[in-house]
């Protein structure tokens, strides 16, 4: 058996590049105050958005983002073959509750904060393998529902350590199609689970940086590309600390990514004005930054080749209470025009 699409150890070149027909992004009020606010389709005024609970608000964000992406693409929802989505809440309820009325076959995904790129990889495979013509991919997170599930009640008067990150309230959604004029997903590198032995749940960037490094270098080795092949390389939510660590780790292996690399969690908030400590995190971080900022840059041809590496911390509050270390994962896709 010959895998004709596989190159090297774990990278794949699509035989027919998959078209990204449209994207949509909706973010919360704190993200609205951030430096990228003009790139998002909609910024909410409050985190409840008229709902009774944080969880219901997150579901509404997912629903509206997916609907907005579908209507922007001009494809009727009956022609969409799959909906691939995930989030951080237990059993992915934000996605399943938000999408229960869409009437599109639904495949729920979980890759912690790497879910967005994971959904685009799976969607690209469906399209390249002739299982689908049109696929919608989505991922979301909500600051308040994440704090409630993973940390403390919002009103508790505790201090956040400087290495902690701020979960992004928001969602991003993309429509992948077989035909179109680009931007195109051309290659992807699914990541391996990498455990660097970090146990501090307030330092996710450090826990995930090892996985990001592993995927990044595998991608370069497998495809024979070098960092300057890309106009820009983005990781999902390593934050300020994780970003510095990844630059160091990559340079120790002989890859200099300093000039064209940035992190979506770093871009999302203004560190000095917004007091978000190490930067943004959550599924919604790379999802909304890609759907808002990066996609528009690609459309305007300011970037022509972009590598997106979504990073995730594969843990929950039980595992960290039981003293387990935090395994990380990172999935990469290259998007080109």
């Amino acid at each position, binding site marked *: 058996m010959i895998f004709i699409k596989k190159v090297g150890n774990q990278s794949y070149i699509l035989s027919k590049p998959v078209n990204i027909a449209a994207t949509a992004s909706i973010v919360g009020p704190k993200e609205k105050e951030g430096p990228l606010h003009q790139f998002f389709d909609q910024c909410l005024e409050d985190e409840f958005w008229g709902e009774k609970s944080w969880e219901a608000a997150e579901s509404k964000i997912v629903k509206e983002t997916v609907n907005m992406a579908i209507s922007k693409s001009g494809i009727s929802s009956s022609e969409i073959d799959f909906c691939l989505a995930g989030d951080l809440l237990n059993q992915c309820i934000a996605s399943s509750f938000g999408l229960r009325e869409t009437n599109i076959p639904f495949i729920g995904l979980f890759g912690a904060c790497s879910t967005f790129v994971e959904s685009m990889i799976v969607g690209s495979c469906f399209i390249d393998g002739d299982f689908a013509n049109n696929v919608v991919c989505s991922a979301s997170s909500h600051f308040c529902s994440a704090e409630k599930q993973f940390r403390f009640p919002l009103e508790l008067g505790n201090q956040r*350590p400087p290495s902690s990150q701020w979960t992004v309230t928001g969602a991003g959604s993309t429509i992948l199609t077989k035909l179109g004029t680009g931007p195109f997903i051309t290659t992807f590198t699914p990541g391996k689970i990498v455990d660097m032995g970090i146990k501090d749940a307030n330092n996710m960037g450090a826990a995930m940086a090892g996985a990001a490094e592993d995927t990044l270098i595998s991608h370069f080795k497998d495809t024979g590309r070098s960092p300057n092949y890309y106009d820009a390389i983005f990781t999902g939510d390593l934050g300020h600390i994780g970003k510095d660590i990844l630059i160091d780790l990559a340079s120790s292996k002989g890859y200099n990514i300093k000039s064209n690399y940035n992190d979506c969690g770093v871009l999302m908030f203004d560190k000095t004005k917004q007091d978000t400590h190490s930067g943004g995190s959550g599924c919604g971080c790379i999802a909304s930054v890609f759907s808002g900022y990066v996609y528009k840059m690609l459309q305007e041809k300011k970037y022509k080749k972009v590598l997106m590496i979504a990073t995730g911390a594969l843990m929950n509050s039980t595992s960290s209470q039981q003293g387990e270390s935090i395994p990380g994962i990172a999935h990469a896709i290259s998007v080109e025009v």
Partner: protein
Amino acid sequence: MDWYMVLKAFITGGVICIIGQILIDKTKLTPARILVILGGLGWYKYLIDFAGCGATVPLTGFGSLLAKGTISEVKSTGLIGAFTGGIKAAAGGIAAAIFFGYIASLVSKPKIKKQ
């Protein structure tokens, strides 16, 4: 009003809070664990005599209140006192926290931290 006592309460309470802050920043213990540790350390009648509310208001005072209540109840009623004395002495604070907590949940909703 005994202002010298108020000053002593200010300084003693402040120093206990500094110890708590160092525990939080240096040990990565969560606030819940800090509260347990400090609550268990309340062996300090002398400090209460010296600083009044400076020693009773911090959580260390909660531990000492429980211990003191237990001992005095044991003296009057024996073994049963070991079980009834502690909570009896601390009942005011605990009951108030439960009751006002319930009221607050009826009338108020959580809001996002602006920072």
